[in-house]
């Protein structure tokens, strides 16, 4: 095995040169056992790439098993091709997966395989045409080592290679094809050449060709070749994935670039494959649904829980709508004043050690014994200081609300906009997820941990509806003027009127609400998913709450979410913006 590894390592520079003399990738990780392969996440195939750390992984024992030991340059150049050509980066891989999924309704699990096979075709055709590599012999060797008879889809795939490289029918080991399957192989070959430069545009068409075959076959024959199905393992989530890319999925038979305009003119133009996510009540052509966003991340090989994916989804969606969050101006800022030294102990941050003072104490340093750190006091400053107001967020996740982890919730998105805007200016946030009586989750008071707060925002309990008046009471009952001002934001629907109910101590709900608003001093907003806003606003609860000082915004779609963000910013900023409020405070 060591000899083989040495031989393959020697072929690495030649394989790199197939793409460019300037290609720089680290030498592959060479594995020899099932245990090592499992640790790397390599199962089924003899090679794998990961885009997160730009590595190629080769399993030498499987290389021997398939009789591929003489094709080092071919296989290594192929793996490098995934890094430098298709997919190249995680963002393109994500778009490719999304398009393949749209072409494979209910067969989404096959999307990573379809994308991998398509990319293999592009890479291999390039390596054969431009560098005359013996990729056909690799496939022949695989056919010899395979114990299973060639499936229909595998045979179509091999036939496409035969057409591309001018090989005789069946020479790569595929079975005899029907007329329509031969047509599909012709289409695949043509597609690969047509979309060689802008490969992403052909991925949907390729998946469309595979669709009828995958309905009846699972495609296990491809397992040894699937080297790019988990390329995002351990990587960062690519940006922009929460947006639909808007690419049209056309079967190559209806694609003028593939079949030529003269041939297509004879047939009726076919419609685009309807996509599940755009038909599910979401915003067509704008946002992907959270469930699909997570499925694409999974297909990239990323292991995220539904909640973690939802956090990333809403954060990405919210970032382009951030608003100026209100801040207060305090009369004077404080400035740090050095006040000698304090002992530095082992648990303190290393960077806070004052080394000069420590050496003066003892030339010989004993950490925790002779180390000291600078002690700082404060003195009055000359400039007024801006201090953000905090945010107290209540998120309704009763059964009447959609699960934000599955479907885009514009209420949750609006909440994310306000939360991220608040955190951006240094505010602390307390978030409470509530449903029925006694069903709630909360952050540990007012915190600045973005993930903890967004985790509550996108949470879902799906029970009854009972506003948690007791938390409102506990939060504001003992608050004093020296505490920071707080803006209260409640995300709910018609169930908001359960705020009227008394708490467990018998206090009237609206009294608690009034007390909380007064003690918070930063105002209150109810962001409600109301489809009959006029009716709701005409009811006693809404009138009473408005008189009390609550701002009520109905949000049901993307446009109303943007309108809310704009209006929230205008109201809060115009009346409590930094300069104006500062001037008021000084007067």
């Amino acid at each position: 095995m060591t000899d083989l590894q040495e031989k393959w390592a020697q072929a690495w520079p030649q394989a790199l040169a197939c793409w460019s003399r300037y290609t720089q990738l680290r030498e592959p990780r060479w594995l020899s056992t099932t245990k090592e392969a499992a640790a790397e996440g390599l199962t089924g195939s003899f090679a794998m790439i990961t885009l997160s750390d730009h590595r190629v992984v080769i399993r030498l024992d499987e290389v021997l098993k398939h009789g591929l030991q003489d094709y080092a340059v071919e296989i290594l150049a192929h793996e490098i091709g995934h890094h430098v050509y298709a997919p190249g980066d995680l963002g393109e891989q994500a778009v490719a997966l999304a398009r393949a999924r749209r072409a494979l309704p209910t067969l989404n699990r096959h999307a990573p395989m379809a994308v991998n096979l398509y990319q293999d075709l592009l890479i291999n055709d390039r390596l054969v045409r431009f560098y005359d590599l013996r990729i056909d012999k690799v496939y022949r060797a695989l056919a010899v080592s395979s114990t299973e008879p060639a499936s229909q889809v595998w045979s179509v795939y091999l036939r496409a290679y035969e057409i591309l490289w001018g090989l005789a029918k069946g020479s790569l080991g595929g079975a005899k094809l029907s007329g329509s399957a031969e047509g599909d192989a012709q289409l695949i070959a043509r597609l690969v050449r047509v979309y060689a430069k802008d490969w992403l545009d052909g991925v949907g068409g390729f998946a469309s060709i595979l669709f009828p075959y995958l309905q009846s076959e699972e495609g296990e024959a491809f397992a040894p070749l699937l080297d790019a199905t988990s390329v995002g393992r351990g990587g960062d989530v690519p940006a922009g994935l929460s947006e639909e890319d808007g690419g049209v999925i056309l079967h190559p038979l209806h694609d003028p670039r593939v079949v030529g305009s003269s041939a297509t003119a004879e047939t009726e133009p076919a419609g685009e494959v309807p996509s599940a996510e755009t038909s599910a009540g979401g915003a067509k052509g704008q946002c992907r649904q959270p469930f699909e966003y997570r499925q694409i991340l999974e297909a990239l090989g990323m292991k995220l829980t539904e909640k973690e994916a939802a956090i990333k989804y809403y954060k990405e969606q919210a970032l382009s709508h951030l608003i100026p969050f209100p801040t207060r101006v305090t009369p004077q800022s404080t400035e740090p004043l050095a006040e000698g030294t304090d002992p530095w102990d082992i648990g303190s941050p290393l960077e806070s050690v004052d080394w000069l003072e420590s050496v003066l104490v003892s030339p010989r340093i004993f950490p925790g014994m002779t180390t000291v750190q600078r002690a700082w006091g404060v003195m009055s400053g000359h400039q007024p200081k801006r201090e953000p107001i905090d945010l107290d967020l209540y998120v309704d996740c009763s059964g009447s609300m959609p699960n934000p982890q599955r479907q885009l919730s514009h209420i949750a998105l609006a909440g994310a906009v306000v939360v991220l805007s608040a955190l951006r200016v240094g505010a602390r946030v307390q978030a409470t997820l509530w449903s029925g009586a006694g069903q709630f989750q909360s952050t540990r008071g007012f915190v600045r941990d973005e993930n903890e707060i967004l985790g509550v925002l996108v949470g879902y309990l799906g029970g009854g509806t009972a506003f948690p008046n007791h938390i409102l009471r506990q939060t504001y009952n003992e608050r004093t003027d020296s505490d920071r001002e707080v803006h209260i934001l409640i995300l709910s629907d018609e169930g908001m009127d359960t705020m009227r109910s008394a708490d467990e101590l018998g206090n009237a709900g609206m009294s608690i609400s009034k007390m909380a608003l007064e003690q918070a001093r930063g105002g209150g907003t109810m962001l409600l998913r109301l489809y009959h806003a006029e009716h709701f606003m005409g009811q006693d609860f809404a009138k009473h709450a408005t008189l009390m000082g609550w701002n009520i915004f109905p949000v049901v779609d993307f446009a109303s979410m943007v309108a809310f963000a704009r209006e929230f910013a205008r109201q809060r900023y115009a009346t409590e913006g930094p300069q104006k409020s500062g001037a008021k405070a000084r007067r």
Partner: protein
Amino acid sequence: MTVRGPSVRELTHHLAECPSIFLEEPVQPSGQGGVYVHAVVSDLLLDLGGEALSGQDLARFRYSSREAVREERNRLRLVLLGAWLFSHSGFQRGDERERLLSADKVHGFLATGLNPLARLVAADELLGDPDRREELARLGLDALDLVPHGEGEKEAKNRLAALSSVEREKVLAQARAAEARARAVQEQLARKQAAQAAANSYYNE
């Protein structure tokens, strides 16, 4: 005995460099157009050692009527491209008898051999697409019973079969029928998946 012709690479390169005169419109009965196809073909046949067109042969390389312009235009334009292909010096080798034979075959090919291709591929596409250029080059070699330089007879036949627009159209017609059935299923499943997605968004795990 296998007779070698020019290599496919040489011929496709030659086609890619087709001069603009061969791309001009064939002269129509109305007098519009820039090139007399029959004159071009006659010149070619003379160059190959054959005889100029005459009588009924001339009619094959002209529009048959004003009404037929739309139908016959692509065929005549392909004849011009075919004439340019055979103007490659590689076709003008051999002794007088061989060249005469070539001229007969070229005449036959230009008169009728290009008709199936003309029904499927537009002349502009034929020049702009490397696969189609290769197809025309191989069709030309095959018409003259020549094997491309650097290839075996079987390999050349395989390659021509793989590139053949006529063969491709046959299998694509079958694929179209299968795709129509698959698309119906695909659309039905997409709607089903959409309905499930909408329903699932209200349920917790």
